[in-house]
Protein backbone atom coordinates (compact mmCIF):
# COMPACT_ATOMS: atom_id res chain seq x y z
CA UNK A 1 0.00 0.00 0.00
CA UNK A 2 2.22 2.77 -1.18
CA UNK A 3 1.97 5.54 -3.69
CA UNK A 4 1.73 3.16 -6.60
CA UNK A 5 -1.15 1.21 -5.15
CA UNK A 6 -4.71 1.89 -6.14
CA UNK A 7 -5.97 5.34 -5.45
CA UNK A 8 -9.61 6.31 -5.23
CA UNK A 9 -11.73 5.84 -8.31
CA UNK A 10 -13.62 9.05 -9.01
CA UNK A 11 -14.61 7.98 -12.47
CA UNK A 12 -15.96 4.55 -11.69
CA UNK A 13 -19.60 4.13 -12.50
CA UNK A 14 -21.80 2.77 -9.76
CA UNK A 15 -25.40 1.63 -9.92
CA UNK A 16 -28.16 3.91 -8.63
CA UNK A 17 -28.08 2.23 -5.26
CA UNK A 18 -24.46 3.23 -4.79
CA UNK A 19 -22.71 6.33 -3.52
CA UNK A 20 -20.81 8.80 -5.63
CA UNK A 21 -18.77 11.56 -4.06
CA UNK A 22 -16.98 14.10 -6.17
CA UNK A 23 -14.67 16.82 -4.94
CA UNK A 24 -16.34 16.88 -1.54
CA UNK A 25 -15.04 19.75 0.55
CA UNK A 26 -16.40 20.76 3.93
CA UNK A 27 -15.32 23.14 6.68
CA UNK A 28 -16.58 23.70 10.22
CA UNK A 29 -16.40 27.39 11.01
CA UNK A 30 -13.74 27.94 8.31
CA UNK A 31 -11.66 25.00 9.57
CA UNK A 32 -11.40 22.58 6.65
CA UNK A 33 -12.37 19.07 7.65
CA UNK A 34 -12.79 17.33 4.31
CA UNK A 35 -10.66 18.30 1.35
CA UNK A 36 -11.66 17.35 -2.16
CA UNK A 37 -12.77 13.79 -1.55
CA UNK A 38 -13.88 11.79 -4.56
CA UNK A 39 -14.93 8.18 -4.70
CA UNK A 40 -17.62 5.88 -5.99
CA UNK A 41 -18.89 3.10 -3.76
CA UNK A 42 -20.94 0.06 -4.54
CA UNK A 43 -23.41 -1.30 -2.03
CA UNK A 44 -21.23 -3.50 0.12
CA UNK A 45 -19.38 -3.45 3.43
CA UNK A 46 -16.90 -0.61 3.43
CA UNK A 47 -14.63 0.38 6.28
CA UNK A 48 -13.82 4.01 6.88
CA UNK A 49 -10.52 4.13 8.68
CA UNK A 50 -8.55 7.01 10.01
CA UNK A 51 -7.05 8.46 13.13
CA UNK A 52 -9.14 10.60 15.48
CA UNK A 53 -10.07 13.90 13.87
CA UNK A 54 -9.44 12.68 10.35
CA UNK A 55 -13.00 13.53 9.24
CA UNK A 56 -14.68 10.11 9.31
CA UNK A 57 -17.83 11.21 11.13
CA UNK A 58 -18.05 14.39 9.09
CA UNK A 59 -17.86 12.36 5.90
CA UNK A 60 -20.75 10.23 7.11
CA UNK A 61 -22.74 13.37 7.95
CA UNK A 62 -22.10 14.67 4.45
CA UNK A 63 -23.33 11.37 3.04
CA UNK A 64 -26.47 11.78 5.16
CA UNK A 65 -26.94 15.32 3.88
CA UNK A 66 -26.87 16.69 7.42
CA UNK A 67 -24.37 19.42 6.67
CA UNK A 68 -24.15 21.81 3.73
CA UNK A 69 -21.13 21.17 1.55
CA UNK A 70 -18.62 23.90 0.85
CA UNK A 71 -17.94 22.41 -2.55
CA UNK A 72 -18.53 19.23 -4.49
CA UNK A 73 -21.36 16.80 -4.90
CA UNK A 74 -22.66 13.76 -3.06
CA UNK A 75 -25.09 11.34 -4.64
CA UNK A 76 -26.51 8.57 -2.49
CA UNK A 77 -28.85 5.91 -3.85
CA UNK A 78 -29.49 8.03 -6.91
CA UNK A 79 -30.26 11.24 -4.99
CA UNK A 80 -28.23 14.40 -5.10
CA UNK A 81 -27.89 15.21 -1.39
CA UNK A 82 -27.82 18.95 -2.05
CA UNK A 83 -31.25 18.74 -3.67
CA UNK A 84 -33.15 15.78 -2.29
CA UNK A 85 -31.45 14.77 0.93
CA UNK A 86 -34.75 14.19 2.67
CA UNK A 87 -35.93 11.68 0.11
CA UNK A 88 -32.58 9.94 0.19
CA UNK A 89 -32.63 9.68 3.97
CA UNK A 90 -35.70 7.47 3.79
CA UNK A 91 -33.29 4.85 2.44
CA UNK A 92 -30.42 5.50 4.83
CA UNK A 93 -29.82 4.25 8.35
CA UNK A 94 -27.61 6.15 10.77
CA UNK A 95 -26.08 4.85 13.97
CA UNK A 96 -24.33 7.71 15.74
CA UNK A 97 -21.44 7.15 18.08
CA UNK A 98 -22.61 9.50 20.81
CA UNK A 99 -26.11 9.61 22.25
CA UNK A 100 -28.62 8.20 19.84
CA UNK A 101 -31.30 7.22 22.32
CA UNK A 102 -34.14 9.44 23.49
CA UNK A 103 -34.67 9.07 27.23
CA UNK A 104 -38.14 8.46 28.54
CA UNK A 105 -39.03 6.00 25.80
CA UNK A 106 -38.97 2.23 25.78
CA UNK A 107 -36.76 0.47 23.27
CA UNK A 108 -39.68 -0.55 21.12
CA UNK A 109 -41.31 2.88 21.46
CA UNK A 110 -38.17 4.65 20.32
CA UNK A 111 -37.61 2.30 17.40
CA UNK A 112 -41.21 2.58 16.22
CA UNK A 113 -41.16 6.37 16.66
CA UNK A 114 -38.10 6.72 14.46
CA UNK A 115 -39.65 4.33 11.98
CA UNK A 116 -42.67 6.60 11.71
CA UNK A 117 -40.41 9.59 11.25
CA UNK A 118 -38.85 7.70 8.35
CA UNK A 119 -42.21 7.61 6.64
CA UNK A 120 -43.64 4.30 7.83
CA UNK A 121 -47.29 3.92 8.78
CA UNK A 122 -47.66 3.65 12.58
CA UNK A 123 -48.72 0.04 12.52
CA UNK A 124 -45.90 -1.03 10.20
CA UNK A 125 -43.40 0.88 12.30
CA UNK A 126 -44.47 -0.86 15.50
CA UNK A 127 -44.48 -4.29 13.90
CA UNK A 128 -41.10 -3.69 12.31
CA UNK A 129 -39.70 -2.34 15.60
CA UNK A 130 -40.50 -5.65 17.27
CA UNK A 131 -38.85 -7.54 14.41
CA UNK A 132 -35.61 -5.61 14.36
CA UNK A 133 -35.35 -5.66 18.16
CA UNK A 134 -35.66 -9.43 17.96
CA UNK A 135 -33.00 -9.44 15.28
CA UNK A 136 -30.49 -7.44 17.31
CA UNK A 137 -31.17 -9.52 20.40
CA UNK A 138 -33.20 -7.08 22.47
CA UNK A 139 -36.50 -8.94 22.38
CA UNK A 140 -36.63 -9.42 26.13
CA UNK A 141 -35.61 -5.87 26.92
CA UNK A 142 -37.72 -3.99 24.40
CA UNK A 143 -40.22 -2.63 26.92
CA UNK A 144 -37.58 -1.26 29.27
CA UNK A 145 -36.82 2.44 29.23
CA UNK A 146 -33.81 2.93 27.03
CA UNK A 147 -31.91 5.13 29.50
CA UNK A 148 -31.72 2.05 31.76
CA UNK A 149 -30.01 0.00 29.07
CA UNK A 150 -26.40 -1.08 29.42
CA UNK A 151 -23.87 0.24 26.92
CA UNK A 152 -24.06 -2.96 24.87
CA UNK A 153 -27.84 -2.81 24.79
CA UNK A 154 -27.76 0.83 23.75
CA UNK A 155 -25.49 -0.06 20.84
CA UNK A 156 -27.92 -2.76 19.78
CA UNK A 157 -30.83 -0.37 20.14
CA UNK A 158 -29.03 2.17 17.98
CA UNK A 159 -28.50 -0.50 15.36
CA UNK A 160 -32.19 -1.44 15.57
CA UNK A 161 -33.39 2.13 15.06
CA UNK A 162 -31.05 2.43 12.08
CA UNK A 163 -32.60 -0.71 10.57
CA UNK A 164 -36.27 -0.18 11.33
CA UNK A 165 -37.16 1.42 8.00
CA UNK A 166 -35.19 -1.17 6.01
CA UNK A 167 -32.54 1.15 4.58
CA UNK A 168 -30.38 0.46 1.57
CA UNK A 169 -27.33 1.89 3.26
CA UNK A 170 -26.29 1.76 6.87
CA UNK A 171 -23.84 4.36 8.20
CA UNK A 172 -22.28 3.17 11.44
CA UNK A 173 -20.13 5.47 13.49
CA UNK A 174 -17.92 3.51 15.89
CA UNK A 175 -20.55 0.81 16.49
CA UNK A 176 -18.38 -1.18 18.89
CA UNK A 177 -17.39 1.80 21.00
CA UNK A 178 -17.51 0.99 24.71
CA UNK A 179 -18.39 -2.67 24.26
CA UNK A 180 -16.85 -5.65 26.02
CA UNK A 181 -15.21 -8.27 23.76
CA UNK A 182 -18.29 -10.49 23.66
CA UNK A 183 -20.61 -7.60 22.88
CA UNK A 184 -18.22 -6.40 20.22
CA UNK A 185 -18.14 -9.75 18.50
CA UNK A 186 -21.91 -10.08 18.47
CA UNK A 187 -22.44 -6.57 17.05
CA UNK A 188 -19.86 -7.28 14.36
CA UNK A 189 -21.62 -10.55 13.55
CA UNK A 190 -24.86 -8.65 13.05
CA UNK A 191 -23.24 -6.05 10.84
CA UNK A 192 -21.48 -8.68 8.80
CA UNK A 193 -24.72 -10.59 8.36
CA UNK A 194 -26.48 -7.44 7.16
CA UNK A 195 -23.76 -6.58 4.68
CA UNK A 196 -22.83 -9.99 3.39
CA UNK A 197 -26.14 -11.86 3.52
CA UNK A 198 -28.91 -9.28 3.50
CA UNK A 199 -27.64 -6.98 0.75
CA UNK A 200 -27.34 -3.79 2.76
CA UNK A 201 -24.58 -1.35 2.02
CA UNK A 202 -22.60 -0.65 5.18
CA UNK A 203 -20.10 2.08 5.85
CA UNK A 204 -18.34 1.31 9.08
CA UNK A 205 -16.43 4.22 10.52
CA UNK A 206 -13.94 3.15 13.13
CA UNK A 207 -10.36 3.33 14.21
CA UNK A 208 -10.41 -0.34 15.24
CA UNK A 209 -8.75 -2.20 12.41
CA UNK A 210 -9.89 -5.58 13.63
CA UNK A 211 -13.52 -4.48 13.25
CA UNK A 212 -12.91 -3.56 9.65
CA UNK A 213 -11.10 -6.80 8.92
CA UNK A 214 -13.99 -8.75 10.44
CA UNK A 215 -16.73 -7.08 8.45
CA UNK A 216 -15.58 -5.12 5.43
CA UNK A 217 -14.74 -5.96 1.86
CA UNK A 218 -12.85 -2.77 1.27
CA UNK A 219 -11.51 0.17 3.19
CA UNK A 220 -11.19 3.88 2.69
CA UNK A 221 -8.40 5.51 4.63
CA UNK A 222 -8.80 9.14 5.67
CA UNK A 223 -6.18 11.38 7.13
CA UNK A 224 -6.54 15.10 7.80
CA UNK A 225 -9.64 15.23 5.63
CA UNK A 226 -7.94 13.66 2.64
CA UNK A 227 -8.83 10.26 1.24
CA UNK A 228 -5.44 8.59 1.22
CA UNK A 229 -6.33 5.34 -0.41
CA UNK A 230 -8.93 2.74 -1.10
CA UNK A 231 -8.12 -0.92 -0.67
CA UNK A 232 -9.74 -4.29 -0.84
CA UNK A 233 -9.77 -6.34 2.32
CA UNK A 234 -8.95 -9.92 1.31
CA UNK A 235 -6.39 -12.64 1.80
CA UNK A 236 -4.03 -11.17 -0.72
CA UNK A 237 -1.32 -8.79 0.28
CA UNK A 238 -1.67 -5.24 -0.93
CA UNK A 239 1.99 -4.29 -0.58
CA UNK A 240 4.24 -5.53 -3.41
CA UNK A 241 7.19 -5.54 -1.01
CA UNK A 242 6.87 -8.71 1.01
CA UNK A 243 9.15 -10.26 3.58
CA UNK A 244 9.96 -13.97 3.61
CA UNK A 245 11.62 -15.86 6.43
CA UNK A 246 14.10 -18.39 5.07
CA UNK A 247 16.09 -20.95 6.99
CA UNK A 248 18.37 -23.59 5.52
CA UNK A 249 21.90 -24.81 4.87
CA UNK A 250 24.19 -25.30 1.92
CA UNK A 251 25.97 -22.91 -0.39
CA UNK A 252 25.09 -19.67 1.30
CA UNK A 253 27.20 -17.49 -0.99
CA UNK A 254 25.56 -18.78 -4.15
CA UNK A 255 22.10 -18.54 -2.57
CA UNK A 256 22.76 -14.96 -1.55
CA UNK A 257 23.93 -14.11 -5.10
CA UNK A 258 20.82 -15.71 -6.53
CA UNK A 259 18.63 -13.58 -4.26
CA UNK A 260 20.55 -10.48 -5.27
CA UNK A 261 19.74 -11.26 -8.89
CA UNK A 262 16.05 -11.22 -7.93
CA UNK A 263 16.60 -7.73 -6.54
CA UNK A 264 15.93 -8.92 -2.99
CA UNK A 265 17.07 -7.18 0.14
CA UNK A 266 18.54 -9.73 2.53
CA UNK A 267 19.08 -9.46 6.24
CA UNK A 268 20.35 -12.23 8.46
CA UNK A 269 19.02 -12.75 11.91
CA UNK A 270 21.10 -15.63 13.30
CA UNK A 271 20.04 -18.63 11.25
CA UNK A 272 17.04 -16.93 9.69
CA UNK A 273 17.28 -14.94 6.48
CA UNK A 274 14.81 -12.13 6.09
CA UNK A 275 14.32 -11.75 2.36
CA UNK A 276 12.38 -8.74 1.10
CA UNK A 277 11.10 -9.19 -2.44
CA UNK A 278 9.41 -6.68 -4.66
CA UNK A 279 6.61 -8.74 -6.22
CA UNK A 280 5.78 -5.92 -8.56
CA UNK A 281 9.14 -6.49 -10.16
CA UNK A 282 8.56 -10.23 -10.28
CA UNK A 283 5.15 -9.82 -11.90
CA UNK A 284 3.25 -11.28 -8.96
CA UNK A 285 0.03 -9.36 -9.40
CA UNK A 286 -1.12 -5.80 -9.51
CA UNK A 287 -2.17 -3.04 -7.26
CA UNK A 288 -5.86 -3.45 -7.90
CA UNK A 289 -6.23 -7.16 -7.20
CA UNK A 290 -3.41 -7.64 -4.70
CA UNK A 291 -0.18 -9.62 -4.94
CA UNK A 292 0.16 -13.36 -4.91
CA UNK A 293 2.75 -14.38 -2.36
CA UNK A 294 3.15 -17.67 -4.21
CA UNK A 295 5.18 -15.87 -6.88
CA UNK A 296 7.73 -14.80 -4.28
CA UNK A 297 7.83 -18.25 -2.71
CA UNK A 298 8.36 -19.82 -6.12
CA UNK A 299 11.20 -17.47 -6.96
CA UNK A 300 13.04 -18.23 -3.72
CA UNK A 301 12.52 -21.98 -4.17
CA UNK A 302 13.93 -21.74 -7.68
CA UNK A 303 17.06 -19.89 -6.49
CA UNK A 304 17.53 -22.41 -3.67
CA UNK A 305 17.30 -25.32 -6.16
CA UNK A 306 19.74 -23.70 -8.56
CA UNK A 307 22.28 -22.99 -5.82
CA UNK A 308 21.98 -26.29 -3.89
CA UNK A 309 20.69 -24.53 -0.83
CA UNK A 310 18.56 -26.88 1.26
CA UNK A 311 15.60 -25.08 2.73
CA UNK A 312 14.39 -25.96 6.17
CA UNK A 313 11.76 -23.25 6.38
CA UNK A 314 10.23 -20.75 3.98
CA UNK A 315 7.27 -18.66 4.96
CA UNK A 316 5.95 -15.22 4.16
CA UNK A 317 5.82 -12.94 7.13
CA UNK A 318 2.18 -11.84 7.21
CA UNK A 319 1.53 -8.16 6.73
CA UNK A 320 -1.50 -7.21 8.80
CA UNK A 321 -3.99 -4.52 7.92
CA UNK A 322 -2.81 -2.71 11.01
CA UNK A 323 0.80 -2.60 9.77
CA UNK A 324 -0.28 -1.34 6.41
CA UNK A 325 -2.66 1.22 7.90
CA UNK A 326 -0.13 2.67 10.30
CA UNK A 327 2.58 2.78 7.69
CA UNK A 328 0.26 4.63 5.37
CA UNK A 329 -0.98 7.09 7.98
CA UNK A 330 2.46 7.76 9.36
CA UNK A 331 3.83 8.28 5.87
Amino acid sequence: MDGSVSKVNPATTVPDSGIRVSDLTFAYARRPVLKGISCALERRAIGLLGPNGSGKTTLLRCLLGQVPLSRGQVRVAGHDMAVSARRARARLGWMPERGGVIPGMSGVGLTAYLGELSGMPARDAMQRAHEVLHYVGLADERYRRCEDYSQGMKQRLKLAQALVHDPQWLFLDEPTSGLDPQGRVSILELIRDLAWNKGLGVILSTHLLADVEAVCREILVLKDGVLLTREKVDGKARDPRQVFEVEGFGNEEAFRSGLDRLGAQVLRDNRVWLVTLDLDRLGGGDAGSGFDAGVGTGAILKVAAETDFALRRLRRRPVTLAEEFYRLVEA
Partner: protein
Amino acid sequence: MPVYDRGYTHWQPSGGTTLPAWLVIARRGVSEPLKRRWLLLLILMAWVPAIVKGGIIYFKLKAGDLADLLGGGWASIGPDGFLSFLEGQRFFVFVLLAIVGAGLIAADRRDNGLSLYFSRPLSLVDYLGGKAAVIVFFYFMVTLFPSYALCLLAYLVAPGATGPDMLLLMPLRATAYCLVSGMSIALVLLAFSSLGKRSIFVMVWWAIMVTGTEAIAAVAGGLGSTGLQAVNFLGQYHNLGSVFFSTEPRLEVSVTVSLGMILVWTALALLVLRRQVRPVEVVS
Protein backbone atom coordinates in the same frame (compact mmCIF):
# COMPACT_ATOMS: atom_id res chain seq x y z
CA MET B 1 -27.50 -19.42 18.94
CA PRO B 2 -26.12 -16.24 17.41
CA VAL B 3 -28.68 -13.51 17.61
CA TYR B 4 -28.82 -12.98 13.88
CA ASP B 5 -30.19 -16.50 13.41
CA ARG B 6 -33.61 -14.96 13.98
CA GLY B 7 -33.09 -13.46 10.56
CA TYR B 8 -33.41 -10.02 9.11
CA THR B 9 -36.31 -9.51 6.76
CA HIS B 10 -36.96 -6.63 4.44
CA TRP B 11 -39.96 -4.43 5.11
CA GLN B 12 -43.07 -5.01 3.03
CA PRO B 13 -45.18 -1.82 3.21
CA SER B 14 -48.79 -2.51 4.19
CA GLY B 15 -50.08 0.57 2.39
CA GLY B 16 -51.34 2.17 5.60
CA THR B 17 -51.58 5.91 6.10
CA THR B 18 -48.37 7.74 6.79
CA LEU B 19 -48.57 10.71 9.14
CA PRO B 20 -46.58 13.85 8.38
CA ALA B 21 -43.38 14.00 10.41
CA TRP B 22 -44.44 17.08 12.41
CA LEU B 23 -47.60 15.30 13.51
CA VAL B 24 -45.62 12.24 14.63
CA ILE B 25 -43.38 14.50 16.72
CA ALA B 26 -46.35 16.44 18.11
CA ARG B 27 -48.28 13.29 18.99
CA ARG B 28 -45.39 11.87 20.91
CA GLY B 29 -44.67 15.25 22.56
CA VAL B 30 -48.26 15.52 23.76
CA SER B 31 -48.71 11.93 24.87
CA GLU B 32 -45.53 11.67 26.94
CA PRO B 33 -46.36 14.49 29.43
CA LEU B 34 -49.96 13.33 29.70
CA LYS B 35 -48.69 10.10 31.27
CA ARG B 36 -47.76 12.11 34.37
CA ARG B 37 -50.66 12.27 36.82
CA TRP B 38 -49.53 15.45 38.52
CA LEU B 39 -49.50 17.21 35.17
CA LEU B 40 -53.08 16.12 34.57
CA LEU B 41 -53.90 17.51 38.00
CA LEU B 42 -52.30 20.82 37.04
CA ILE B 43 -54.37 20.96 33.85
CA LEU B 44 -57.46 20.21 35.90
CA MET B 45 -56.57 23.06 38.25
CA ALA B 46 -56.21 25.33 35.23
CA TRP B 47 -59.83 24.57 34.44
CA VAL B 48 -61.02 25.70 37.89
CA PRO B 49 -61.35 29.36 36.85
CA ALA B 50 -63.37 28.28 33.83
CA ILE B 51 -65.59 26.11 36.02
CA VAL B 52 -66.09 28.98 38.47
CA LYS B 53 -66.84 31.37 35.67
CA GLY B 54 -69.17 28.82 34.12
CA GLY B 55 -71.03 28.57 37.44
CA ILE B 56 -71.39 32.32 37.66
CA ILE B 57 -72.66 32.51 34.09
CA TYR B 58 -75.12 29.74 34.78
CA PHE B 59 -76.57 31.27 37.90
CA LYS B 60 -76.68 34.80 36.57
CA LEU B 61 -78.35 33.72 33.35
CA LYS B 62 -80.78 31.61 35.29
CA ALA B 63 -81.40 34.49 37.65
CA GLY B 64 -82.00 36.75 34.70
CA ASP B 65 -79.25 39.15 35.71
CA LEU B 66 -78.19 39.49 32.11
CA ALA B 67 -77.27 43.14 32.26
CA ASP B 68 -74.35 42.43 34.60
CA LEU B 69 -73.07 39.68 32.36
CA LEU B 70 -73.16 41.73 29.22
CA GLY B 71 -71.15 44.44 30.92
CA GLY B 72 -67.43 44.32 31.69
CA GLY B 73 -65.46 42.33 34.23
CA TRP B 74 -64.04 38.85 34.61
CA ALA B 75 -67.42 37.17 35.01
CA SER B 76 -69.03 38.75 31.96
CA ILE B 77 -69.82 36.81 28.81
CA GLY B 78 -68.91 39.72 26.55
CA PRO B 79 -65.62 39.98 24.64
CA ASP B 80 -64.04 41.87 27.53
CA GLY B 81 -64.91 39.06 29.91
CA PHE B 82 -63.37 36.47 27.66
CA LEU B 83 -60.15 38.40 27.24
CA SER B 84 -60.06 38.93 30.99
CA PHE B 85 -60.49 35.21 31.46
CA LEU B 86 -57.58 34.49 29.10
CA GLU B 87 -55.47 37.05 30.93
CA GLY B 88 -56.30 35.36 34.21
CA GLN B 89 -54.96 32.08 32.89
CA ARG B 90 -51.42 33.44 32.58
CA PHE B 91 -50.20 31.72 35.74
CA PHE B 92 -51.21 28.34 34.36
CA VAL B 93 -49.79 29.25 30.95
CA PHE B 94 -46.49 30.10 32.60
CA VAL B 95 -46.26 26.99 34.77
CA LEU B 96 -47.63 24.43 32.34
CA LEU B 97 -45.57 25.60 29.39
CA ALA B 98 -42.43 25.71 31.54
CA ILE B 99 -42.97 22.09 32.50
CA VAL B 100 -43.91 20.86 29.07
CA GLY B 101 -41.79 23.06 26.83
CA ALA B 102 -38.49 23.58 28.61
CA GLY B 103 -37.02 20.22 27.68
CA LEU B 104 -38.46 19.86 24.20
CA ILE B 105 -35.26 20.81 22.39
CA ALA B 106 -32.88 20.93 25.36
CA ALA B 107 -33.30 17.20 25.96
CA ASP B 108 -32.69 16.43 22.30
CA ARG B 109 -29.54 18.51 22.36
CA ARG B 110 -28.35 16.88 25.56
CA ASP B 111 -28.86 13.35 24.28
CA ASN B 112 -27.71 13.99 20.72
CA GLY B 113 -31.27 13.43 19.59
CA LEU B 114 -31.04 16.08 16.89
CA SER B 115 -28.62 13.88 14.99
CA LEU B 116 -31.17 11.07 15.12
CA TYR B 117 -34.05 13.27 14.01
CA PHE B 118 -32.15 14.74 11.11
CA SER B 119 -30.97 11.36 9.91
CA ARG B 120 -34.64 10.83 9.02
CA PRO B 121 -36.47 12.38 6.10
CA LEU B 122 -37.72 15.43 7.96
CA SER B 123 -36.97 19.11 7.61
CA LEU B 124 -36.27 21.81 10.17
CA VAL B 125 -39.84 23.03 9.68
CA ASP B 126 -41.19 19.55 10.44
CA TYR B 127 -39.12 19.34 13.58
CA LEU B 128 -39.92 22.81 14.89
CA GLY B 129 -43.54 22.51 13.78
CA GLY B 130 -43.94 19.31 15.76
CA LYS B 131 -42.31 20.75 18.85
CA ALA B 132 -44.27 24.00 18.61
CA ALA B 133 -47.50 22.05 18.19
CA VAL B 134 -46.85 20.41 21.56
CA ILE B 135 -46.61 23.79 23.27
CA VAL B 136 -49.59 25.17 21.40
CA PHE B 137 -51.65 22.13 22.39
CA PHE B 138 -50.99 22.63 26.10
CA TYR B 139 -51.51 26.38 25.70
CA PHE B 140 -54.90 25.64 24.19
CA MET B 141 -55.63 23.22 27.03
CA VAL B 142 -55.66 26.09 29.51
CA THR B 143 -56.90 28.92 27.31
CA LEU B 144 -58.82 28.05 24.17
CA PHE B 145 -60.56 24.83 25.18
CA PRO B 146 -61.99 26.31 28.42
CA SER B 147 -63.14 29.30 26.34
CA TYR B 148 -65.00 26.97 23.99
CA ALA B 149 -66.58 25.28 26.98
CA LEU B 150 -67.72 28.63 28.36
CA CYS B 151 -69.17 29.71 25.02
CA LEU B 152 -71.05 26.44 24.72
CA LEU B 153 -72.34 26.70 28.28
CA ALA B 154 -73.54 30.26 27.82
CA TYR B 155 -75.29 29.32 24.61
CA LEU B 156 -76.91 26.23 26.09
CA VAL B 157 -78.10 28.04 29.21
CA ALA B 158 -79.53 31.05 27.41
CA PRO B 159 -79.52 30.66 23.65
CA GLY B 160 -81.94 33.50 23.21
CA ALA B 161 -79.97 35.94 25.32
CA THR B 162 -76.49 35.16 24.01
CA GLY B 163 -77.42 34.60 20.39
CA PRO B 164 -75.35 32.97 17.64
CA ASP B 165 -72.42 35.23 18.53
CA MET B 166 -71.67 33.00 21.47
CA LEU B 167 -71.60 29.94 19.26
CA LEU B 168 -69.68 31.40 16.34
CA LEU B 169 -68.12 34.82 16.74
CA MET B 170 -66.70 34.44 20.25
CA PRO B 171 -65.07 31.06 19.52
CA LEU B 172 -63.64 32.57 16.34
CA ARG B 173 -62.19 35.53 18.24
CA ALA B 174 -60.73 33.20 20.88
CA THR B 175 -59.33 30.83 18.25
CA ALA B 176 -57.64 33.59 16.27
CA TYR B 177 -56.16 35.17 19.39
CA CYS B 178 -54.98 31.88 20.89
CA LEU B 179 -53.48 30.74 17.59
CA VAL B 180 -51.47 33.93 17.11
CA SER B 181 -50.35 34.21 20.73
CA GLY B 182 -49.80 30.47 21.08
CA MET B 183 -47.55 30.20 18.03
CA SER B 184 -45.48 33.18 19.04
CA ILE B 185 -45.14 32.05 22.66
CA ALA B 186 -44.27 28.54 21.48
CA LEU B 187 -41.45 29.82 19.26
CA VAL B 188 -40.04 31.98 22.05
CA LEU B 189 -40.11 29.08 24.50
CA LEU B 190 -38.56 26.75 21.93
CA ALA B 191 -35.80 29.29 21.36
CA PHE B 192 -35.04 29.26 25.10
CA SER B 193 -35.13 25.48 25.04
CA SER B 194 -32.66 25.37 22.18
CA LEU B 195 -30.17 27.53 24.06
CA GLY B 196 -29.56 25.03 26.84
CA LYS B 197 -29.14 21.36 27.40
CA ARG B 198 -30.79 21.23 30.82
CA SER B 199 -34.48 21.93 31.34
CA ILE B 200 -33.92 23.65 34.67
CA PHE B 201 -31.87 26.42 33.08
CA VAL B 202 -34.49 26.86 30.39
CA MET B 203 -37.15 27.16 33.10
CA VAL B 204 -35.14 29.85 34.84
CA TRP B 205 -34.86 31.86 31.63
CA TRP B 206 -38.54 31.35 30.93
CA ALA B 207 -39.41 32.55 34.46
CA ILE B 208 -37.29 35.66 33.96
CA MET B 209 -38.96 36.28 30.62
CA VAL B 210 -42.50 35.96 31.98
CA THR B 211 -42.50 37.00 35.63
CA GLY B 212 -39.36 39.14 35.53
CA THR B 213 -40.61 41.36 32.73
CA GLU B 214 -44.03 41.57 34.36
CA ALA B 215 -42.43 42.67 37.62
CA ILE B 216 -40.32 45.30 35.85
CA ALA B 217 -43.41 46.64 34.09
CA ALA B 218 -45.35 46.70 37.35
CA VAL B 219 -42.60 48.53 39.25
CA ALA B 220 -42.17 50.99 36.39
CA GLY B 221 -45.93 51.52 36.29
CA GLY B 222 -45.92 52.17 40.01
CA LEU B 223 -43.26 54.80 39.51
CA GLY B 224 -45.33 56.42 36.82
CA SER B 225 -43.37 55.21 33.81
CA THR B 226 -45.65 53.62 31.27
CA GLY B 227 -43.04 53.09 28.55
CA LEU B 228 -41.51 50.09 30.31
CA GLN B 229 -44.82 48.26 30.11
CA ALA B 230 -43.70 47.32 26.63
CA VAL B 231 -41.26 44.80 28.13
CA ASN B 232 -44.03 42.83 29.85
CA PHE B 233 -43.88 39.62 27.83
CA LEU B 234 -47.34 38.10 28.29
CA GLY B 235 -48.86 41.55 28.73
CA GLN B 236 -48.14 42.40 25.11
CA TYR B 237 -50.18 39.41 23.93
CA HIS B 238 -53.12 40.48 26.10
CA ASN B 239 -52.77 44.02 24.80
CA LEU B 240 -52.83 42.69 21.25
CA GLY B 241 -55.82 40.55 22.23
CA SER B 242 -57.87 43.72 22.58
CA VAL B 243 -57.83 43.92 18.78
CA PHE B 244 -59.14 40.39 18.40
CA PHE B 245 -61.89 40.94 21.01
CA SER B 246 -62.62 44.56 20.02
CA THR B 247 -62.06 45.91 23.52
CA GLU B 248 -59.99 48.64 25.09
CA PRO B 249 -56.18 48.04 25.17
CA ARG B 250 -55.07 46.32 28.36
CA LEU B 251 -51.87 48.33 28.80
CA GLU B 252 -50.97 51.95 28.54
CA VAL B 253 -48.76 51.24 25.54
CA SER B 254 -50.36 51.20 22.13
CA VAL B 255 -51.34 47.98 20.39
CA THR B 256 -48.89 48.81 17.61
CA VAL B 257 -46.02 48.81 20.09
CA SER B 258 -47.22 45.48 21.46
CA LEU B 259 -47.42 44.04 17.97
CA GLY B 260 -43.92 45.31 17.26
CA MET B 261 -42.54 43.74 20.42
CA ILE B 262 -44.22 40.44 19.62
CA LEU B 263 -42.84 40.48 16.08
CA VAL B 264 -39.35 41.25 17.38
CA TRP B 265 -39.48 38.39 19.93
CA THR B 266 -40.80 36.00 17.33
CA ALA B 267 -38.19 36.99 14.76
CA LEU B 268 -35.42 36.67 17.33
CA ALA B 269 -36.76 33.29 18.35
CA LEU B 270 -36.72 32.11 14.74
CA LEU B 271 -33.16 33.33 14.30
CA VAL B 272 -32.03 31.51 17.43
CA LEU B 273 -33.82 28.34 16.39
CA ARG B 274 -32.31 28.44 12.94
CA ARG B 275 -28.87 28.74 14.44
CA GLN B 276 -29.24 26.28 17.29
CA VAL B 277 -31.29 23.48 15.81
CA ARG B 278 -29.10 21.46 13.50
CA PRO B 279 -27.82 17.95 13.52
CA VAL B 280 -24.21 18.89 14.05
CA GLU B 281 -23.02 21.20 16.79
CA VAL B 282 -20.34 23.55 15.56
CA VAL B 283 -17.80 24.57 18.14
CA SER B 284 -15.83 27.45 16.76
